[in-house]
């Protein structure tokens, strides 16, 4: 199952900080201690200049590449783009991915234990923002001893974190790749977020966020939220192609309220499987963080947001059929950055996959990302990491046996 273009077996790692002094959040609240789950692939070079941070979307995790176990059915969520010879080439770059603050895949979030009560936070967890998520990522980068990232890449909510880095921490990054994203969450996006949240609130099992340790969770609400999400990630064309009006295991209409159409079955399946892997409260907190995201604040001007980011290089990509984050959001970003004098490469990729395209248009994305990173490496004189497998520092301990483990797994 694990082929030679995979990063092989990987181990989740954890960084805990803000143990003595709590982390200051943008809302004014504080939080501590904070744990961030992360994974790394590839090796740091001697100058520590070849690090790339991958940031995930709404439901993602730190597990972006490789496998946790040899018999895992699926690799990490962006495995098609992370590995030797892939878009983010782990022979050349040190790739890091962490779970966002507020998430439910190992980083501190509403399902974590509140040290003052000894019980899960639930709604006692403070509301976090994209800015807070990025502050936690900065702690991680500091911990890994990296002054400046070569690049940060991510799509959708990941793209928002990418833009947050570029606008507010431009000295910490040489280049950014925001994909299928926006600099300002639109009213339509807020509306979809709210429908998802309302579905969760309406589930009696949600119990105001206090359901941890109960026999039932707000699965029905979370499943509906996920179904709405899935609709927005597709396009009419891709739904037509994928499902058409096909019936599921039926010759003709049953004239009853059962799952009859393929598309219904798809939504139901994805909604239900989501409840087995995601926490409803995390869904509330993360969608809220996205809704607050607006880089035009406080001046009202997007160009002003990037006034200090002119040294950062951008590869911006949108997709023609993405109606959730339509191309004009990216074009607005391109305009603002061009006006600010930044180095911007932009492509609106023709695709019928809707918002999901950023994970599906692998060939075109690989060409773009690989060439963009090669150019960066050339212009910034980035050395390749040492060829021999050797631990660069303690944090890479999980990296060292990778080759051996991958070999054993094949």
């Amino acid at each position, binding site marked *: 199952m694990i082929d030679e273009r995979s990063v092989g077996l990987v181990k989740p790692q954890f960084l805990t900080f803000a143990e003595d002094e709590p982390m200051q959040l943008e809302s004014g609240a504080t939080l501590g201690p904070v744990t961030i789950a992360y994974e790394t692939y590839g090796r740091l070079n001697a100058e520590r200049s070849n690090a790339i941070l991958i940031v995930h979307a709404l439901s993602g995790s730190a597990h972006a590449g490789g496998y946790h176990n040899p018999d895992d059915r699926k690799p990490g969520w962006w495995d098609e783009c992370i590995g030797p010879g892939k878009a983010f080439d782990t022979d050349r770059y040190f790739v890091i991915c962490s779970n966002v603050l507020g998430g439910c895949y190992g980083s501190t979030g509403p399902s974590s234990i509140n040290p003052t009560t000894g019980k899960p936070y639930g709604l006692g967890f403070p509301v976090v923002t994209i800015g807070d998520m990025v502050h936690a990522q900065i702690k991680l980068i500091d911990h890994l001893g990296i002054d400046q990232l070569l690049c940060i890449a991510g799509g959708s909510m990941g793209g928002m974190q990418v833009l947050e880095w570029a606008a507010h921490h431009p000295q910490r990054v040489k280049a950014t790749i925001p994909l299928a994203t926006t600099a300002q969450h639109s009213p339509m996006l807020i509306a979809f977020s709210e429908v998802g949240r309302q579905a969760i609130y309406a589930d009696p099992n949600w119990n105001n966020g206090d359901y941890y340790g109960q026999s039932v969770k707000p699965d029905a609400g979370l499943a509906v939220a996920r179904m709405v999400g899935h609709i927005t990630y597709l396009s009419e064309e891709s739904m037509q192609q994928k499902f058409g009006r096909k019936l599921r295991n039926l010759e003709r209409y049953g004239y009853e309220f059962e799952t009859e159409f393929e598309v219904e079955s798809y939504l139901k399946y994805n909604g239900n499987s989501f409840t087995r892997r995601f926490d409803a409260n995390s869904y509330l907190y993360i969608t809220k963080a996205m809704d607050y995201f607006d880089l035009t604040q406080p001046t009202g001007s997007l160009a002003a947001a990037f006034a200090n980011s002119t040294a950062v290089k951008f590869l911006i990509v949108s997709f023609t059929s993405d109606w959730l984050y339509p191309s004009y959001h990216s074009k607005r970003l391109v305009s603002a950055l061009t006006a600010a004098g930044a180095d911007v490469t932009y*492509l609106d990729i023709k695709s019928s996959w809707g918002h999901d395209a950023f994970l599906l248009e692998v060939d075109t994305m690989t*060409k773009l990302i690989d060439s963009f990173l090669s150019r960066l490496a050339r212009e910034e004189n980035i050395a390749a990491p040492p060829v021999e497998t050797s631990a660069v520092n303690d944090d890479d301990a999980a990296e060292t046996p990778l080759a051996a483990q991958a070999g054993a797994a094949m």
Partner: protein
Amino acid sequence: MSYEPAPRSDEAMAALRPDLRAIAEMVPVGVRALDLGCGNGELLEYLTVHKQVKGRGIELSEEGVLACVRRGLSVRQGNLQEGLADYPDGSVDYVILSQTLPFLDDPAMILHEMLRVGSSAIVSLPNWGYWRCRLELLLTGRIPKAYDLDQRWHDSPRWQALTVTDFARFCEQIGVQITQQTYLSRGRRIHVRKIKNLRATTAIFMLIKAE
């Protein structure tokens, strides 16, 4: 990380399309240039590698943008018809438009925009005044194909046939001054000035705002 060694400057120059070669000669070393409709990035790559130009491009087609990114260029997808509004005044030294003017709806707008964003503009265009074009129209009664542009009137995108004399008059009318001109006949430079409209298949002009 290893890279292909850059080809020698003269070899790379020889590989360029003839009008791009003429443009490359006009662009000084180390300037900032913006190439409008930069296609596969052939010219921008030459300017970046061999003339240390800080080059950016705008290209409409996905294939073009991809090809440019593959060459390691900074290019954004965009439609020139929408103008260059995002670019601040005087933000580059040279704005280049090669073999694209006949396809644009509003040539005056684009030339003014080029000279707002750049201090100079370089434009290459196919010449329908070339004697064979004239003869083709006269003898066959059909709208001629420009020698250096493989498009008939019905091919998409549509083009507007014009001659170098038309262009010179037009520049005068809209307050644009021609400071340098190069004429090519089927890829070779010609020096005859008087019957250039009859002999040139492509012309390259350096432009500035008229005093």
